[in-house]
């Protein structure tokens, strides 16, 4: 490192010998320059995230034509609708079960890959990451084709084994299962890479010490791996909870909320009300119902990330 440092400083010295002096003035300007550098970012965040977020709250208090203030009317309307409560229920089922299985599969596959000899790990990791690399909208289309009512390739196997055809997307409960399955398929690789990185960061000496003390694999996992990975696991799970809860692509493409609105999640229901039916205020109100759970997750993620930052130093 030291010689590279010298090389750079030497390069700068020869490039700008004249700009010397005025160091004090420089320091005075420092915060101004820093602020100017942040300005584009601030403009984007304020205009396209903060302002829309508050605008959304305002929008949700208007009537459909956006001509009249109706207070909490949209929220009150939603709370009386059975479909809305089904959306709440399905979003919770969707997010919780998908995140659980993603975390489980991610944990298992990360351990399996970590068990392999080092030179084979990269290849397996690359292979298992494929679902996460394909744009979700396009792989959802592929899954839809796999679930196609008349041509389902899964049903070819199922009937070949002597069972009845499975109505993957036409039966409400199978449809719920299918969208969760696709979400698990898509999201598990993310957990895999996060956990694999966390596993690699656990010092080997801990395992060696445990082996000397006669710990078996399970004891090593419970007493070393889990405590060492706890923080990163929590961050990953909470983060995934947000992303899964707000997921749109899978449900919109495979079922568009059907059959009988049973697979709608907040995002697709808000899309249907706001964009398809043209009732933007009602759609805004629907998507704002996501806010509490997102905010709670965000607070905990932030706490975890900060703690992690302090641990590393």
């Amino acid at each position, binding site marked *: 490192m030291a010689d590279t440092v010298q090389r750079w400083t030497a390069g700068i010295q020869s490039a700008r010998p004249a700009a010397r002096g005025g160091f004090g003035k420089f320091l005075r300007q420092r*915060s101004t320059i820093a602020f100017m550098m942040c300005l584009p*970012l601030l403009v984007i965040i304020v205009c396209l995230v903060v302002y829309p977020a508050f605008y959304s709250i305002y929008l949700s208090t208007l009537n459909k034509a956006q001509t009249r203030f109706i207070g909490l009317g949209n929220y009150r309307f939603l709370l009386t609708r059975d479909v809305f409560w089904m959306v709440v229920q399905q979003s919770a089922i969707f997010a919780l079960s998908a995140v659980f299985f993603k975390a489980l599969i991610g944990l298992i596959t990360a351990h399996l890959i970590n068990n392999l000899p080092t030179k084979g790990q990269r290849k397996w990791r690359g292979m298992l990451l494929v679902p996460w690399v*394909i744009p979700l909208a396009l792989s959802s289309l*592929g899954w839809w084709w796999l679930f196609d009512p008349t041509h389902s390739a899964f049903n070819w196997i199922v009937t070949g084994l002597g069972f009845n055809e499975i109505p993957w997307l036409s039966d409400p409960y199978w449809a719920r299962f299918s969208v969760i399955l696709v979400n698990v398929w898509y999201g598990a690789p993310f957990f895999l890479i996060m956990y694999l990185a966390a596993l690699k960061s656990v010092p080997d000496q801990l395992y060696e010490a445990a082996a000397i003390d006669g710990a078996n*694999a399970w004891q090593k996992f419970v007493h070393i791996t889990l405590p060492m990975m706890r923080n990163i696991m929590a961050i990953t799970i909470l983060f995934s909870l947000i992303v899964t809860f*707000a997921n749109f692509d899978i449900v919109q493409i495979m079922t568009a909320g059907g059959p009988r609105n049973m697979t709608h999640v907040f995002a697709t229901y808000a899309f249907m009300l706001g964009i398809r039916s043209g009732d933007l205020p009602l759609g805004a109100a629907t998507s704002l119902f996501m806010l509490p759970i*997102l905010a709670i997750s965000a607070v905990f993620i932030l706490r975890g990330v900060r703690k992690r930052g302090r641990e590393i130093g």
Partner: protein
Amino acid sequence: MTTAAVSVPSTRAQTRRSSLRRSRRWALVASYVFLVIFAIFFLIPPYYMVVTAFKTDAEVAHMATNPWIIANGVTLDQFRILLTQTDFLIYFKNTAIVTVCVVIITMVVSVLAAFSLGRMRFWGSGVLATGIFLTYLVPDTLLFIPLFQIVKAIGLLNSYWGMVVVYPTLTVPFCTWIMIGYFQSIPKELDEAALIDGAGYMQMLTRIFIPVALPGIIAATIFAFTVSWAAFVYPMAFLYSSDQQVLTVGTVTSLIRADVYKWGMLMAGALLAATPPLVIYAFLMDYYIAGLTAGATKG
């Protein structure tokens, strides 16, 4: 076995060692078996998409043969139809334009901001860094309805330039966040030396920080690329005419609108659309993973 072990301690150690080796080997075999099972689960859809894309329409339509293999000969017809008789190439061009613009905007904005927040500091910069992380957690499905109004107000509804305006909300926060991490890991002595030698802040950034943090820049670029290539909610809500459409939405909506579902062609389209990200990952996966995990673990 216990008696033997008690009477001859050295043999006991030996049996223990060989049983340890045997159990290691079993663990390895078991790992491979389960990995193969998971790999099958993960690779079924892409495999089936490839198989379908190379089948003839007749074979796709009649389920006479095993759907999992190509029985009646490989054909490139699906790709030919896709490229000559549909708007697929327009979608591809639109997506490419949007993605390139968004990646450039994202990198300029987030590298400048990360340098300033990670290194220079000013009043409120700590709060701002936290705020950026929080905006990363705001999902697009929460913002698309108010953004619909805003995009409409600036006259970019149903224009892919509207995507260039709104996609940075998806990319900039995270890219800034991981770049802050990379910049903070650069030793302080470097910028002190540069300042003493009379370098300005811009020079410091372009000559020291960008070259040193190049892995981070690559990771952030890949992130911005992937996100804007795969974005779905915003184009789904804001674009409706075919000449402005992007790949993801175009493939799953416009191509489908024909009377009969041309699954072979749809799969060919999905595959072609997924190729650029796949190629990038094949070559730069390690940078990306390092950047992602660093972003979450270092903070």
